[in-house]
């Protein structure tokens, strides 16, 4: 507290902010100060509360308790307009630009009333641009711009309001490396002009480059604050991914402590990635020349800070994203660019990262969801065999301990844990299962459900199924995986073997440093 007197008055300070969505606490007692001239990085995994915090500051959500001060005065925004009036601007992850209008029109949108003096406005904008060392073609249509340029328009739009606080919500997620570099330069310059810049990110290289301070959120709480983030990358990573209360997950420890006897020769490869490269629709390289194998009867985990290519790997293996280069083999059979159906037929079970979007159909019944991708076994001459479906569903519900009022209830009414157990049940009972790809299989589940999920995954492994586990829960990964492969920016940084896991090395790989 003492050294705070040396600091200038915060541009914005938050004290004891709580925010609930229903019974879910998104923010818990968050206290945070933003000072003029600093680039403040806000870190945390998905769901840690970063976006909620930004939205509270920007007036989209109102806190349930706690107070905010702007330049020493109480600040209680009830809508984003209040925030803008108070000099707080935000660039959202999804742009809000009018595609068919020019850059100039977009910049003036909502900032001018009545008569527009285009000449004068243009001069004002050009001055701002010059001050930032930016260039923008004001007459170009938004639809003709690249993603990086569009983002620049969004930022300039905010800066024209001359804000004292600028919030950027994961601005680098969509950018190419060169554009990221340019964006960081702009952030620095905006901060130098006396603005407090809040940068939401989970990319550590960016923090290293420009953060003057950093705050780590986990489950809505501030778990670490750092005044020299560049020197404390390792601890920041640990604060982001470690769950102090859950290191010894009782349900996992006994299983993990049993030494893993290798029952299958290493040559029993069920998955082989050969120089796999994936570029997304915007041309950004998401997976960069990945080569790895998964053998029969082992769990290989993909670890890494989120957004480093794990989602894309899961999507490619599910047949939901095209491969740009390289090959994928399942049990010796090439499945590069195969359809979801072919992949299922090759014996790959998929537990997708986004359960609701890809893993299940919430409006259909539990039975139908349990059999979704093996309907060919439950129809004869095109007619569904309802009795056979019911019997199988009942068997799966019993075997996987899925709690539901009946097998005919809509899937959407089940709890998250039971939904995930049902998805697992479906994928693990594929006829010729050789490989299970489970992406974030425990996200959003309670401890009991987490244990159940891993018990089933381990059982599958013991049956000789190869498991590729994509997870950002490092503790879980270390407890169940036979090997851990760390991804950073779509590249494999290193591999750690069971029994020899070195948290420090893994942490370094996750931060993009070769150990």
């Amino acid at each position, binding site marked *: 507290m003492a050294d705070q007197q040396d600091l200038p008055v915060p541009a914005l300070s938050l004290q004891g902010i709580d925010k609930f969505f229903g019974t879910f606490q998104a923010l818990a007692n968050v206290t945070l100060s933003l000072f003029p001239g600093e680039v403040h990085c806000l870190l945390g995994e998905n769901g840690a509360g970063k976006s909620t915090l930004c939205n509270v500051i920007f007036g989209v959500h109102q806190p349930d308790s706690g107070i905010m001060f702007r330049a020493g005065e109480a600040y209680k925004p009830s809508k984003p307009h209040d925030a803008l009036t108070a000099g707080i601007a935000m660039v959202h992850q999804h742009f809000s630009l009018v595609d068919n209008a020019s850059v100039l029109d977009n910049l003036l949108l909502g900032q001018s009333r009545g008569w527009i003096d285009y000449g004068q406005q243009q001069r004002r904008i050009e001055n701002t641009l010059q001050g930032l060392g930016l260039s923008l073609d004001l007459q170009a249509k938004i639809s003709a711009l690249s993603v990086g340029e569009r983002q620049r328009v969004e930022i300039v739009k905010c800066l024209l309001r001359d804000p004292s606080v600028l919030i950027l919500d994961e601005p680098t997620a969509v950018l190419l490396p060169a554009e990221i570099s340019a964006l960081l330069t702009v952030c620095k310059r905006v901060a130098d002009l006396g603005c407090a810049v809040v940068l939401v990110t989970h990319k550590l290289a960016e923090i290293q480059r420009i953060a003057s301070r950093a705050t780590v959120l986990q489950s809505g709480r501030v778990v670490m604050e750092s005044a020299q983030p560049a020197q404390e990358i390792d601890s920041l990573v640990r604060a982001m991914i470690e769950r102090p209360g859950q290191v010894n997950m009782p349900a996992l420890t006994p299983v993990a402590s049993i030494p893993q006897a290798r029952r299958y020769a290493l040559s029993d490869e069920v998955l082989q990635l050969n120089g796999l490269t994936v570029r997304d629709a915007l041309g950004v390289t998401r997976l960069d020349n990945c080569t790895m194998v998964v053998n029969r009867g082992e769990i290989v985990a993909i670890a890494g800070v989120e957004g480093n290519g794990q989602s894309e790997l899961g999507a490619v293996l599910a047949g939901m994203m095209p491969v740009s280069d390289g090959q994928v083999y399942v049990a010796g059979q090439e499945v590069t660019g195969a359809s979801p*159906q072919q992949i299922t037929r090759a014996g790959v079970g*998929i537990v997708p990262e986004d359960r609701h979007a890809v893993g299940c159909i919430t*409006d259909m019944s539990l039975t139908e969801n349990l059999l979704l991708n093996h309907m060919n076994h439950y129809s004869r001459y*095109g007619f569904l065999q309802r009795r056979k479906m019911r019997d199988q569903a009942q068997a799966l519900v019993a075997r996987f301990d899925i709690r539901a009022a009946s097998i005919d209830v809509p899937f959407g009414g089940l709890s998250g844990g039971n939904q995930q157990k049902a998805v697992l049940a479906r994928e693990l009972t594929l006829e010729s299962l050789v490989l299970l790809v489970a992406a974030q299989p425990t996200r959003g589940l309670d401890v009991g459900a987490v244990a159940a999920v891993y018990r089933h995954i381990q059982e599958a492994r013991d049956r000789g199924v190869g498991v590729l586990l994509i997870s950002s829960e490092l503790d879980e990964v270390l407890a169940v995986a036979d090997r851990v492969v760390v991804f950073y920016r779509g590249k494999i940084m290193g591999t750690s073997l069971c029994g020899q896991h070195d948290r420090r090395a893994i942490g370094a790989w996750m931060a993009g440093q070769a150990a």
Partner: protein
Amino acid sequence: MNNLLIKLTPAQWCTNSHIRTLLVMGGATMIAVLVAIVMIISFGVPVSEALEAFADGAWGSPYAIGASINRSLVFALVGIGFVLANRARLTNVGGEGQIAIGGIAATAMSLYGGCENLPYGLAYIVPMLCAALAGGVWGAIPGWLKARLGTNEVISTLLLSFIAIWLLYWCVQSVDLLRQPMTSGGTLPESLTIPETTQLPLLWPDSGLGIHLGLAITLVLGVVVAAVISRTRFGFSLRAVGYNPQAAKRAGVAITWTMVAALAIAGALGGLGGAIMLQGDQYSLKAGFSSGYGFDGLVVGLLARNSITGVFVAALLFGFMRSGGINMEMVAQIPAALVLVVQAIVILILAGSALWLSRKGEKV
């Protein structure tokens, strides 16, 4: 249905969805009829005279009943197709054009396709099949556009309808196409009457009802489609694609094929409806052949709220109202458009009550 009414207490009536649908439908019709009576009075026509004309036309004689039922067949066929496509969350607005295309195909086959002398009823079956095929192609196009390019099927089916309607107009205007040979200046722009062998046979020729084979075909197709929807793997795929295309794709459902098939079947039913209209009662193709039946069929499908039984009920309602309205115009000089007003009121009340009930977290 009567059994159900007796078995349930009044409180249960309101919670049983079938009965509630019927109650809402009945209530809506009654309100609409009251409005119609007010309008009849304002025309200066005695209400009793108008209603008598309406009743005469709708169900006053065996012939009237038969005509009303025949009329409702097209509504039912388009409605059945609508319900099927709607399972995949596809909205087929193109019934009107699919009827027109079916009518063109059936006329062409009946007159010039050499069907006249085919044995075993093939003389009338082949034109119907061709009409269904043509309507199916007309429906498949929007399905393909939707699956591949994301084109909204509401717009593409509607636009294709306009193309089909003008195509029909062209067919009956040009002697090189389907117009009857010009023997005098007074030759009407319509096709020749189709040969008797290609006309649909009556189900009960001696009854005076005039109900033709189309009724049997429609009933059978209704049962078949109901079974397809609820009991087949294709019906399962339709629902999966409708609810969550991403998850359906992951589960191995061929999205493109399912969408194309759904709209093609809806189109085929519309095309068949056109053939039944032509071969069942009109016997010659004229401009304005489809006369809004496709759009009425769409409304029938909407009102039925995904139930094939509902389609039949609504189709009959519309069939009788249309017949009664036409007679009212001829006998009591009240514009037949009054029936359209009544229909519109029914639709608005039903749609409104559906919205109201869904706001309460329920479904009609």
